[in-house]
């Protein structure tokens, strides 16, 4: 996927998620749509394009969190790199395997987020973050299943056929 498409998609998904969370009244359960995007980038994008896209996606998440600290930007790039490494060992082709891949990425992302929060928050509780993680991972897996066809379509739309407009 190209950089701008990824950014546009991330913006749209985050906005939609923010509204859905408000309507559903979810307190701790969130859908990590950005992790789904980063996981897809890890599987399909080149190193530089993926790193830049993951950086932008993380920045957007940081911005929409209301307290931009850089944590989610770092985590997005880190998740992309680890995902890229893992993708050399596993074969991810179908929607179900992609959902599992995204769920694994979300577990890592969630644990790291809780760890860094614990590092910087002196009095606040981080246990609530971990208690909400299983639901978050399941919701993210479901989102990955739903988004996989869309992401593939975006990707296919950018693959120019040989000989086109020759």
């Amino acid at each position, binding site marked *: 996927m190209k950089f701008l498409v990824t950014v546009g998609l991330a913006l749209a998904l985050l906005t939609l998620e923010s509204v859905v969370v408000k309507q559903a009244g979810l307190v701790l359960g969130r859908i990590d749509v950005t992790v789904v995007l980063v996981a897809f980038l890890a599987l399909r994008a080149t190193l530089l394009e993926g790193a830049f896209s993951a950086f932008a996606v993380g920045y957007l998440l940081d911005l929409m969190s209301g307290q931009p600290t850089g944590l989610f930007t770092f985590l997005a790039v880190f998740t992309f790199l680890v995902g890229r490494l893992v993708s050399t060992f596993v074969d991810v082709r179908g929607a179900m395997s992609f959902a599992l891949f995204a769920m694994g990425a979300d577990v890592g992302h969630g644990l790291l987020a809780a760890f860094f929060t614990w590092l910087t928050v002196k009095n606040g509780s981080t246990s609530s973050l971990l208690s*909400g993680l299983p639901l978050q991972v399941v919701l993210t897996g479901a989102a990955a299943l739903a988004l996989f066809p869309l992401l593939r379509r975006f990707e296919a739309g950018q693959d120019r056929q040989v000989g086109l407009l020759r």
Partner: protein
Amino acid sequence: MLSLLKRYRRPLIVGILLLYPLMAFLLSGRRVRDPNPLDRAVIALSSPVQQALTAAIEGSVAAVRGYLDLRGVRQENDALRLENLQLRAAVQSLGEARTENERLRKLLGYAETAEGPEIPARVVGVNPVAKLLSVRISSGEKDGVFRGMSVVTPDGIVGQVIRATGGYADVALVTDPQSRVAVRVQRSRARGTAAGTGAGPLKLENMLRTEDVENGDLIITAGTDGIYPPGMVVGTVTNLEKKEHGMFQGADIVPAVDTSKLEEVLVVGSPYSAMAPGSTGEGASK
């Protein structure tokens, strides 16, 4: 040197993309930076979409609910009419009490606390990160909303403005794990701190074991944290734990406002709040 840079260009760029935000995070800790022009542009781009989506979804939900509720509307109308009569009577007697209060204050030489503006706003979205409990509201700097101002509903306190841009602001909720509010038991005036836990009730902390507090007591803001005006409802005490040893007693506070179902809020500029852009209002949340 140049050839080395050229050779390792890609890993270098990726390394910078990885380490720059990490360094920014570790060096700044939990300090929130002021929004830069890029932040403002992205917020200005995404917030109207958020607002439109919210309006569309809320409109659809309201239409369905409206149809379902129509059947009970007559009975509800009668009940509301009765309640209205009672409330009018109550307002009248409160007016009397207020007049008397003002007169007595004057007699005692008290200065009237300067009330700040009350800026209405709609909640347009919820922060998509579970780590921080915050919502985005439809009023910002151009409406007079600035960082550090407190956000309330008629039922009680909601949170604190942590970032304001042109037409939007982000509000950290009192239920956020990093939120701390100086509170008081309304009945006994005992002081303590209400701490967010991330979900469910708040925790009552720093309440001395000898202080008079009971289950069911109403907890109000003390006004000493420099963020929330005094006397605003925070919630009700439950699960009181009076220990035999130790300095403090603990309890849960059920928040008066269900922050997961917020729709309209008021932004209040108390005399304690930061009323200028760029000023820090981090008294209640680190």
